[in-house]
């Protein structure tokens, strides 16, 4: 790394030395409990709130354990560049992290991979033809990263879109599963993610029972895939209900 111009001294976080990787659990050790005491197939409690940012057309805040995310939606508004005519609307997504989101202080830069994944997960659910020639901007900021960041961002973004009144076929709920040895753990925290052997993330529209995005890493056999997908689909269904009730609450509160 080239030193930055200026006289910024180099710093390091006072971590207790390089950790030797502690085996979180041994093979077939089913007595092992997750660091936060959850069961393998138990999600963290989800908290959603819409209307977190006043200056945006729509916004939502989501908190899953230590994962805290805020998403703003702007638009539909004039497309940024002199873009070509388009008879469907455009979706523009951006995900960034704060410098203090991760345990080691980061640069707080844009996360290109997540931005494009967010785009792919949402575009199938939005009725783009309802706002031709214009753009909807979905901007996400991860305030604190506590694992399963991308699924939380996606779910939160779909809620923010709903808050902005963008026409959608359905809400999008997202859940990920980590494969640790032979075990599948749902909604992994940061520590579990760093030791995982494989992962699967599924985003779906719960009421339509359609998958909008699916990614795998690691090595999976067909029965494992079936099991993991079913796990995610069930969790998405539950998550969808939580999200829906959050919207309903907001709507009834505004009516009063």
């Amino acid at each position, binding site marked *: 790394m080239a030193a930055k111009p200026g*006289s*910024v*001294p*180099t*710093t*390091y*976080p*006072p*971590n*207790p*030395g390089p950790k030797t990787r502690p085996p979180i659990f041994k093979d077939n050790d089913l007595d092992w409990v997750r660091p936060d005491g959850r069961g393998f197939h138990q999600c963290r409690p989800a908290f959603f709130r819409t209307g*977190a*940012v*006043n*200056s*945006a057309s729509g*916004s939502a805040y989501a908190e899953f354990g*230590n994962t*805290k995310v*805020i*998403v*703003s939606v*702007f638009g539909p*508004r004039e497309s*940024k560049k002199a873009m070509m005519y388009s008879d469907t609307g455009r979706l523009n997504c*951006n995900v*960034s992290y*704060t*410098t*203090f*989101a*991760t*345990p080691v*202080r980061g640069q*707080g830069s*844009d996360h290109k991979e997540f931005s494009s994944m967010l785009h792919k997960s949402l575009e199938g659910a939005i009725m783009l033809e309802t706002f031709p020639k214009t753009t909807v*901007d979905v*901007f*996400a*900021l991860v*305030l*604190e*990263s*506590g694992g399963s960041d991308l699924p939380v961002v996606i779910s939160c973004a779909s809620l923010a879109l709903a808050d902005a009144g963008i026409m959608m076929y359905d809400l999008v709920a997202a859940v990920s599963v980590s494969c640790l040895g032979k075990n599948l753990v749902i909604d992994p925290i940061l520590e579990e993610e760093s030791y995982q052997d494989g992962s699967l993330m599924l985003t779906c529209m719960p009421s339509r029972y359609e998958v909008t995005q699916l990614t795998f890493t690691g090595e999976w056999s067909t029965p494992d895939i079936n099991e993991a997908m079913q796990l995610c689909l069930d969790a998405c269904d539950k998550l969808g209900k939580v999200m829906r009730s959050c919207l309903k609450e907001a709507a009834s509160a505004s009516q009063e």
Partner: protein
Amino acid sequence: MGLPNAIGDLSTEVEVEAFRRLFPLRFYEKHLSESIRPDARPLGRARDTTIALGAVASANGSALAKIGSTTMLAAIKMEVMTPSMETPDEGCIAIDFHMPPICSPIVRPGRPAEAAPVVSKQLSDTILSSGMINLKELSLVSGKAAWMAYLDIYCLDADGALFDTALLSAVAAFSHLDIPEVSLNDDGKIVLLSEEQEGMSDRESVNKEKRKVTLSSVPFSLTCILHKNYILADPTAEEESIMETLVTVVLDSSSQLVSLYKPGGPVLAYTSAIQDCIALTRQRAKELQKILDEAISGMEVD
């Protein structure tokens, strides 16, 4: 004088929202003449202010401050650095202010907001020159190691008075700061003294006494708008865009002037107006101190 009359006539016919958008200045002036603002505040009153400490678990100190709907999240991360030759027993504070695209419709990804570097500079000037933090307290081993406090402030929602809210969140984050207990290892590096090691390790903590920073003379600020003879405290984004003359006054706990910032603007500030602004700030500083004290005592109860 046909035009103002025409507008006047129009104002009775068009709806309030439309009038507000078409003739924003007249809309405001009508309110001001009644000594009230569109959000029902008197001119000198600031918006509701809240502080929540410890909003970010992964940081050493953090706070969320809200003034009206303007929201700022400040967090401090402590890292270790080798102090410079000139000041071997002083630490350092690096302050950065960010306006991510979520906070306002005018910020787009890849192109940082124009205001962000300016507020960032203003903040670091104010915090460093106010003498709130004694940099010597951030020293660990003289000449060898000292703390570098990275203070990052994120604007989550921008609705005017950015600097005031950012400064408040920064001050609150420092008051919440918990410096981790560390020791010097064999390689001359500073490492965390984690709890499980405490028993078996013979290393000694190098900062047993210095786990909190003492905040002497805390700076508080208030931004006012000067418009004609009116002084509007704590403006919203809409007010800032319509009436462009802003004065930001920063006073510390002993009512010393830390900064009086008036970057241009069409209205000239006369001594009497400045005195009024300072008086408003004095009053506001007391309010903010109370809110901050309440937030801190609220934390201690938990």
